[in-house]
């Protein structure tokens, strides 16, 4: 009877049963896995398209926030912008894409306001320099004092052509308030009278900005005499001797909201990032001690119970109330309240992994405590620590808004998103609501991005999702 051995022996050759020679390259190949934690985390994160695009948006926003003051054509954040001639603050100017107020065709006669002398005395340095290139113009020829008669030579629904003291020009025809008219007013000429002082314009339109002069480049006009200029081609009349615009409008102090928003974002982000780092450092340090050093466990647990029982808001309010308002106070107050959550989390994780076999082995081999903590324990926590830091940035920005509302935040001279929102809050129901809308849009983009990116990063960092 054939044994199994006989059955298979002819298929086996002795050569197949020789000992293998140690081959280091083959050994390397067998022991090699192309799994890497951070690589997989990164790939996982890239799969989430929403988070990825938000990350790019956030990165661009952050870069822009920091380089914005160095871009050409920016106003300084706290500069109060006055009209160069009337020196009236340009308050609550609505957002505009360009500050060209009017385009006039060639051969338009404009009245020149001599502001070269003015510029040297009262106007800010920037405007004084601009005065060489720009001339201030309007089409106001003269004004008629109240209750004076003048002759209407041509009647129009919006503007009437008139003659007064030898000046021929146009006056606005809003006769419900101003012009006193005869019964058959369309029959010209006739004598009319206004109860108020009214302006005579050289063209049937008003080329001013709220009664203030507009500015035109010297190169696009030719001077007839000292007081009149004629446009040589189509010319742009601007609100200011400047090509810079108020993209977000101006606030109620006449400051450029665009510059204020970015400067405020910088402040708020600085606070947020500083708070995130302080919380992480304090939280990790205390959490590690709490979890690793057994004799401290009881004490720190009691401290935790005390702090955890008070509403965070109250601690924030109390600390900001006692200290002087400022950026460092805010950072300090938020770090004091924020480290608790981080510390508790780190502690719980460390208690879980502290006594695992590999740590026990490490300890038996005489690895010192610091090395065990920094090499064996903390790498496990990196992803969640990052998540918590990402989430504490929007939290800190929100707290800043709240503290500012209560009146304990930053002084108005330091623009921050909290300050801007607090000022804009009162204007929401008015036509100046853009002063609240722009800061809140920027704030929401930042906080929502941090939140979503943080969460999807935490998902990506979870090894369960690495399959």
């Amino acid at each position: 009877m054939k044994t199994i051995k006989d059955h298979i022996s002819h298929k086996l050759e002795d050569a197949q049963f020789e000992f293998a020679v140690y081959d280091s390259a083959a050994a390397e190949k067998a022991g090699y896995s192309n799994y890497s934690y951070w690589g997989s985390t990164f790939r996982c994160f890239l799969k989430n398209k929403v988070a990825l695009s938000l990350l790019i948006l956030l990165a661009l926003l952050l870069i822009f926030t920091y380089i914005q003051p160095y871009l050409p054509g920016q106003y300084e954040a706290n500069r109060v912008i006055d009209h160069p001639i009337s020196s009236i603050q340009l308050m609550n100017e609505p957002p505009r894409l360009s500050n060209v107020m009017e385009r006039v065709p060639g051969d338009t006669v404009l009245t020149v306001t001599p502001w070269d002398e003015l510029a040297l005395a009262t106007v800010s340095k920037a405007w004084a320099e601009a005065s060489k290139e720009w001339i201030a113009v309007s089409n106001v020829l003269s004004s008629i004092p109240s209750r004076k008669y003048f002759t209407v030579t041509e009647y129009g629904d919006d503007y009437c052509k008139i003659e007064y003291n030898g000046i021929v020009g146009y006056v606005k025809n809003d006769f419900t308030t101003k012009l006193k008219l005869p019964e058959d007013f369309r029959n010209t000429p006739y004598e009319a009278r206004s109860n108020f002082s009214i302006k005579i314009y050289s063209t049937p339109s008003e080329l001013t900005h709220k009664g203030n002069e507009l500015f035109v480049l010297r190169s696009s006009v030719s001077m007839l005499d000292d007081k009149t200029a004629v446009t040589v081609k189509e010319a742009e009349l601007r609100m200011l001797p400047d090509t810079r615009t108020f993209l977000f409008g101006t606030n109620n102090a006449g400051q450029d909201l665009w510059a204020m928003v970015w400067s405020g974002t910088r402040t708020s982000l600085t606070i947020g990032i500083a708070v995130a780092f302080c919380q992480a450092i304090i939280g990790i340090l205390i959490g590690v001690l709490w979890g690793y050093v057994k004799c401290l466990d009881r004490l720190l647990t009691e401290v935790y119970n005390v702090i955890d029982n008070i509403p965070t808001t109250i601690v924030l309010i109390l600390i900001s109330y006692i200290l002087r308002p400022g950026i460092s106070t805010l950072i300090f107050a938020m770090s004091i309240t924020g480290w608790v959550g981080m510390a508790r989390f780190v502690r719980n994780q460390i208690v879980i992994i502290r006594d695992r076999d590999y740590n026990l082995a490490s300890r038996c081999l005489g690895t010192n405590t610091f090395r065990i903590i920094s090499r064996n324990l903390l790498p496990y926590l990196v992803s969640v620590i990052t998540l918590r830091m990402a989430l504490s940035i929007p939290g800190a920005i929100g707290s800043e808004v709240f503290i500012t509302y209560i009146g304990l935040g930053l002084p108005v001279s330091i623009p921050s998103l909290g300050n801007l929102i607090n000022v804009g809050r009162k204007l929401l129901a008015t036509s100046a609501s853009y002063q609240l809308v722009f800061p809140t849009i920027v704030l929401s983009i930042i906080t929502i991005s941090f939140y979503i990116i943080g969460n999807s990063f935490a998902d990506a960092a979870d090894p369960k999702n690495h399959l």
Partner: protein
Amino acid sequence: MAKYLIKRIGQSLLTLFIILTVVFIMVRQMPIDGYFENIDKLDEAVIKATLDNMGLNDPILVQLKDFFLDLLQGDLGTSARYSQGVPITKIVAEKAPISIILGVLSMAVSLILGIPLGAAMARSKNKFWDKFGTLFIVLINAVPAAVYYIYIQSYGTSLVNMIMHLIQGEEAAKIGMLFDQTRWVTWILPVFSMSLGNIAYYAMWLRRYMVDEMNKDYVRLARAKGVDSKKITMRHVFRNAFVPMIQYIPTSLLYTVGGSIYIESLYSIPGMGGLLVEVIQRQDNPMVQAIVMIYSCIGIVGMLLGDILMAVIDPRISLTRKEGAR
């Protein structure tokens, strides 16, 4: 059980003692302006006499002892700037009821809206309600509350006016942006705003627990038996998922307390939160101290009640191991 109760109450008392001491000592570090209505008009001698009279020049430990003795007799001191010389207990007693009513209402509303939202999200996983709820939760968590409260106040007022106009017709009286205790319509927006954070919080956790519960074997068995899915959700999944939700009630109380400060001040509600903002702006030291202490007490008592409630309701939660784990 009794042992746990005694231990937990003792812990709360200790916490209370520490917090009161810390707050007291911290407020003592403030400039003394906050104890006078107008310090610039007084001369040195008067200031010193008043401070002596108030006991503010004593060593800090003596002050602390006096403070706790007064506290045991229910005396929180008198207001310095807000309304000079009036006992703080009297001011607070007038203001507290409305804050309590608002807080309770908002907790109720957030449970009433948050629980169904969470259940609906779990039932329709990856469909409309789930997506809607996720969007809501992300918005509420990510956008600072201070910002959306403002928008709710402004646009919500016009919305409420519009709805009232539709219901009552021409005779509907318009409401302003501020709170008016005698008109119930003006209660809607503050209570709703205060609830939003907690609605998101409850919905988020209930959804997570219910989804976890739905993947368990007993649910699969029930489904295999042919029980209809509505019944499974209500009878099995929801019931089991609801128990761990109890542990979030104390924390949500802390949120409500925090939110109430802002909301009350925004709507000019004559409650404690608005009062706190007002006395901070007037730098009335004794009142800030007293109100901060009261809020801390609310926090401590709320957490205590929450823990006891949890211990009573869920026998599975181990009373002895719980410490420091939450």
